[in-house]
């Protein structure tokens, strides 16, 4: 066992921090968050510098690194700003499905531009009126010559209005009982029959507004099918597993960023004639916060490491996601409290760390969903 970061890991961490420090502007972030937009210039630059595709192979302009390195970048970005950091790390949301299972020509077509931040992606899994439950799939894709015709409705898709490509989960085998018979497709923004609702107003994660998507006989070529027909549910669960580790890393950074701001504040702010940082209760709050961050961090690193070493299991990813997002929520909550009235004010930032932390706890399934997954993993089949 060796917790030491490698030289390249240290360099990546350093580069990410310098990029964030140089490019993340508080006022711009607050303004763009209000109108739910992501700063395209920064996206492009993040792509250019290799942060977005850090975990993609070099053949596609990626960094050729793993999820541990992704975690270091995500943590650093979100520490500087939870909203922009999350948005940047979601520029390629869903593209892992394509990378790990897609047709080569399809990969060649899209991966380099996505990795470079020229295109952004998203993914659509959920359907109306069934929560996180995918055991029913109303969106259908039917084979029509060398094309597939997709029809259905998807909900709560992050950044749907701005994404250039979207991975869509559909039922391809009408006779199979879900979760069997599902498949993943890549759909492009321009596709005829694809309409995207106005973004919803987000409570948190405001650079990634959720929106609903309607597919009305959208025709896509054969090679947009990702993986084998019928493998959709399995590949979706694999992606969720990877994405949950990514969210965990973002949450660790979100927690750290809120902690940093609270620590700075209580070291300067005086009340009742002494620095807040001298009150035992303030000190104990910070101690609790730091402990939660540390515990979440190493569990997340462990999950990322297991992913890179092909020993990951869904329940470990779910543990990391649940633990880290919970830590982020509790830490940012205390940060808001420590800043008092200022903590509630937009310009002091911690208020959006708090909203973003709750968003992370809810996205890709709230705690109850994570616990179902964890329980399946640790209890196993029952006689």
């Amino acid at each position, binding site marked *: 066992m060796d917790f030491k970061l490698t030289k390249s890991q240290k360099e990546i961490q350093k580069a990410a921090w310098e990029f964030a420090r140089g490019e993340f502007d508080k006022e711009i972030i607050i303004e763009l968050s209000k109108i739910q937009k992501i700063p395209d210039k920064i996206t492009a630059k993040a792509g250019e510098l290799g942060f977005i595709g850090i975990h993609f192979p070099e053949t596609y302009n990626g960094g050729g690194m793993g999820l541990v390195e992704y975690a270091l970048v995500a943590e650093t970005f979100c520490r500087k700003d939870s909203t922009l950091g999350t948005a940047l790390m979601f520029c390629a949301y869903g593209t892992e499905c394509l990378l790990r299972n897609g047709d080569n020509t399809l990969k060649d077509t899209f991966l380099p531009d996505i990795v470079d931040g020229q295109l952004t992606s998203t993914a659509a899994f959920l359907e109306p009126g069934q929560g996180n439950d995918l055991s029913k799939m109303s969106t259908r894709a039917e084979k029509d010559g060398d094309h597939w015709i997709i029809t259905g409705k998807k909900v709560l898709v992050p950044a749907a209005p701005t994404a250039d490509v979207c991975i869509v989960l559909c039922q391809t085998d009408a006779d199979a009982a879900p979760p069997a018979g599902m498949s993943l497709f890549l759909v492009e923004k321009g596709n005829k029959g694809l309409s995207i609702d106005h973004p919803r107003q987000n409570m948190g994660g405001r650079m990634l507004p959720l929106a609903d998507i309607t597919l009305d006989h959208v025709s896509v070529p054969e090679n947009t099918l990702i993986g084998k027909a019928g493998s959709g549910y399995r590949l979706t669960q694999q992606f969720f597993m990877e994405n949950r580790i990514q969210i965990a890393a973002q949450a660790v950074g979100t927690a750290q960023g809120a902690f940093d701001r609270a620590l700075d504040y209580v070291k300067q702010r005086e009340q009742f004639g002494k620095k807040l940082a001298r009150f035992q209760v303030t000190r104990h709050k910070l101690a609790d916060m730091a402990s939660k961050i540390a515990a979440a961090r190493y569990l997340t690193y462990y999950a990322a490491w297991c992913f890179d070493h092909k020993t990951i299991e869904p329940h470990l990813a779910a543990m990391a996601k649940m633990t880290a997002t919970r830590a982020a929520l509790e830490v940012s909550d205390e940060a808001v409290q420590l800043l008092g009235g200022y903590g509630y004010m937009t310009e002091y930032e911690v208020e959006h760390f708090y909203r973003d932390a709750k968003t992370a706890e809810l996205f890709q399934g*709230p705690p109850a969903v994570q616990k179902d997954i964890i329980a399946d993993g640790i209890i196993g089949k029952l006689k």
Partner: protein
Amino acid sequence: MEILHYTDAHRDFRERLRTFLAEEITPHVDQWEADHIVPKTAWQKMGAAGFLCTWAAPEYGGMGGDFLYSVICAEEMARTNHTGLCSMLHSDIIVPYIDAFGTDAQKKKYLPGCISGDMITAVAMTEPDAGSDLAGMQATAEKDGDEIIINGSKTFISNGINADLVIVAAKNPAEENPYQAVSLYIVEDGTPGFKRGRHLDKMGFFSQDTAELFFNDCRIPAENILGQEGMGFIMLMEKLQQERLMCAIGAQAAAELMLELTIDYCKSHTDAAGKPISKSQAAQFAIVEMMTDVKVGRAFLDKLIGSHAAGENVVVETSMAKYWTTDLDKKIASRCLDLFGDFGITEDCPVARGFRDVRVMSIFAGTNEVMKGIAAKFMGL
């Protein structure tokens, strides 16, 4: 058994208020949240309908209602799921200063407008560098002939933009003892030297106009002092009790509303198999646990309301209620969102606004840490 004894008159009043709110207020709430302010006309409607300062004496146009009417107003307003038209602050926290400490002339001059809603009030206590620490107050008030000159800045002032009347706490620079230096003054809208600062952007409380207020050589007539000179601290301490109790009442009602909205959702929404969310064991336990906390808090709060109305010394219990109920709000809001799942990320989720709004309640009117310090002190620890 019921802890509080509401009469038929109380119940009728609550019914009338509910009807009024459903017709005149709730339909506009989303717009006000977008506007980040509530039109003054809404305040006037409240006043005209007799829902402001229900305790005020008939001679000023009030109905002379007991404390339970104030409780009813606070509870029902909280159920409108917005914070902009914070009549509770006006009716049961600020105007009572004028009623309790004002001269007859001041009462005659101001109370009728406060009751009718033509005069919206604000209290300016908190300062950028003081927060919950009143002793650290910087704003000054100096006598100059038959005028008083106020200088200083205040922040986080609710109704800061709408206020026609501001009760300002300021200290006499000549007085050493900070606790004897503070006096209260009435500053009217339009007084030279009194300026409103930015409308502050915040996590929630969108419809509520929270602002900074600035006083630069703001001259007011000497008779605008409220209560005796140097008694400001005592007056604030006295009135803070009811302020904190009102916060607890609002917080309790907010928790009840959020949970109610969540239960409705869980009963009316299903998983893919068509099974209602409320049939999942985990959701059931979460709801039962939240409902238990809500009922437990309600019993404690009702007892406290009764004791407060009876004039008992409830400093410890009030501090406890303020922190306990506002912490409860945070927990309930977060757990409720969990039951909405990914949908909880959007403002379309009926509890999303509550999640943002309640977060300030553990901070204002004295942070919950200050509440615990007060409780410890008066418990003799």
